[in-house]
């Protein structure tokens, strides 16, 4: 698929006077490269089960000033206790609604660029990463300096609203310095009638840093949501990721973790709840580049109706990465005969002293377990719900911060109740 459908939008963006020209070189390079590679098609190995033609057809337009709210938007329905929130509305930063916790510095994309002495950080040059580089709009950077324990979680609330087909490309850098800790949450919500969000997140964890990353994707069912999350971990750092995806028409999370220092650990947990013809795809790569590192992938999906899902998990253990431990678990619950899941856990091991395991199960509700609950007086409907919630709880119960956990539980059970009613 050709990127030329987006050429006019790209020219329009370059002429915007409120975008710094200092990034234009990178934008142009990325766009030129994207013109060569094109958007992925189903012939690409990593995109075999995911069709992005709705995006490559080129109907999305960049977000204009007129797509920003004309007055302060009402975000009551997205309020969450115990967190500080930064609001991005259709790609536009809402300063008056935003606050950050003590210990966190929030920089603009440009300030970040200057902080890095004009070095532009990017990831793997995959098509959507290039698209993000070319079209970056809401760029920002969260910095936590050395030895800083940030108590209050920071949330970026991405709201997508309106009737126009908008494309938004947020780019978030998070730098957590040595021996510091932070809980970061990205919350994607809104009632947009046609929307495409393509975010890129770059997380850098220095030695001994601890980072919790919570992601809720509950956009409208007319949203295409692609996320590229890149994590670089130094020695003794910990990365904990929890994701709940229950919104969007198409959801694709590309998660790529580099365990670069000894004893770096990453724990990736994800739960998807899909209905109608939703398609939710998790594409995870963990690279063990250093000895004594640890990773786990624990990914679950609950599929209703004709929805489809993909788990593509790859753990690569490089040659010198001895004594590492890694596991991958993918469990899927099909609640309709027409739902479909593609699961592909892969281990690539080049070291010889490692402990790795992987497993994948896909099935329907366990009839014997259902009967067991019924035989204790619980009616079939409630028993089913109890079991589905139990299935989900194996992911959700481990979420830190009681307020966030409660909010996510509520989000999940409300959606589930609607589906099971």
């Amino acid at each position: 698929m050709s990127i030329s459908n987006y050429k006019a939008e790209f020219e329009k963006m370059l002429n915007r006077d409120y975008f710094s020209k200092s990034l234009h070189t990178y934008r142009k390079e990325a766009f030129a490269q994207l013109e060569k590679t094109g958007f992925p098609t189903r012939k690409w190995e990593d995109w075999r089960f995911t069709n992005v033609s709705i995006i490559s057809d080129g109907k999305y337009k960049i977000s204009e000033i007129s797509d920003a709210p004309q007055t302060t938007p009402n975000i009551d329905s997205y309020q969450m206790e115990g967190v500080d929130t930064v609001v991005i509305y259709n790609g536009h930063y809402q300063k008056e609604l935003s606050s950050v916790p003590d210990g966190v510095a929030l920089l603009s994309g440009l300030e970040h660029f200057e902080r890095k002495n004009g070095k532009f950080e990017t990831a793997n040059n995959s098509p959507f990463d290039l698209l993000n580089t070319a079209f970056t709009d809401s760029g920002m950077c969260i910095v936590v300096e050395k030895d800083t324990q940030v108590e209050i979680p920071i949330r970026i609330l991405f709201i997508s609203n309106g009737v126009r087909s908008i494309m938004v490309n947020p780019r978030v850098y998070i730098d957590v310095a040595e021996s510091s800790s932070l809980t970061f949450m990205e919350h994607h919500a809104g009632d947009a009638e046609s929307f495409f969000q393509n975010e890129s997140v770059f997380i850098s964890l220095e030695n001994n840093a601890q980072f919790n990353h919570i992601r809720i994707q509950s956009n409208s069912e007319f949203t295409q949501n692609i996320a590229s999350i890149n994590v670089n971990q130094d020695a003794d750092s910990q990365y904990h990721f929890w994701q709940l995806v229950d919104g969007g028409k198409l959801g694709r999370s590309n998660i790529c973790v580099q365990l670069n220092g000894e004893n770096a650990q990453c724990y990736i947990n994800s739960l998807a709840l899909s209905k109608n013809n939703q398609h939710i795809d998790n594409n995870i790569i963990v690279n063990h580049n250093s000895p004594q590192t640890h990773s786990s992938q624990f990914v679950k999906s609950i599929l209703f109706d004709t929805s489809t899902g993909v788990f593509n998990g790859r753990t690569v253990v490089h040659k010198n990465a001895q004594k590492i431990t890694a596991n991958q678990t993918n469990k899927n619950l099909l609640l309709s005969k027409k739902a479909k899941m593609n699961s592909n856990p892969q281990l690539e091991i080049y070291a010889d002293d490692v402990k790795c395991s992987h497993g994948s199960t896909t099935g329907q509700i366990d009839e014997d377990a259902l009967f067991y609950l019924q035989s204790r007086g619980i009616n079939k409907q409630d028993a089913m719900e109890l079991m589905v919630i139990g299935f989900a709880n194996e992911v959700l119960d481990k979420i830190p911060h009681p307020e966030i956990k409660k909010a996510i539980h509520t989000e999940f059970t409300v959606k589930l109740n609607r589906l099971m009613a």
Partner: protein
Amino acid sequence: MIKIENLNVNVEEKEILKGINLEVKPGELHVIMGRNGTGKSTLANVLVGKEKYIVTNGTVSFNGENLLDMSPEDRACAGLFLSFQYPVAIPGVNNMYFLKAAVNAVRKSRGEEEIDAVDFLSMIREKLKMVDLDESFIHRPVNDGFSGGEKKRNEILQMITLEPKLSILDETDSGLDIDALKIVAKGVNDFRSPNRSFILITHYQRILNYMKPDFVHILMNGKIVKSGTMELAKEVEKKGYSWIEEEVAEVA
């Protein structure tokens, strides 16, 4: 309590039960013994309403109601309980949450108010002591990663918590070490009362050293072929089943 008349049951089109007659009155403990494959577990499962067990003939009346017309959950709410031979693990479902849902379902069916969390916890603590289980036990997922003995004690915990009128214990004693067996037997004995009844299905006479049955029945080839008292169980223990088989053959 329960009256089973001429009950015939098929499993996957094979006739397993061939005319069972059994009446259990309030307060009674009946033991059903028999070799493997004689239909003991089929009887237990058909009474609680498991789908693949098809009743082809006969009636079961439970406290005056037609049991076979009721859904599994309604049977439980009406006071019927089965301690499963192989309790299923339900990962992710917290044992306490499950027990509370079950207690409230039963209460709701009786038109009673739901129990609140504090009252429930203090009640469950008492019950846990009765089956010698630690409190951490109820915070684990239902039967998930439980040892054999823990699973059986969890069944007894559910029984004494739900307080059924008729409890069917399907080989609850099988595979238990002697300490676990004593705990299970004590759980049942403490729970006995003039208005509660039990059907104990077993392979082994051993548990009868700790329980006093009112009647003992021998199940053979889908039929109750001999009934008696504790003496009958002792005879089976001593002589095995073949003498009964011979008796049955002679009559036929």
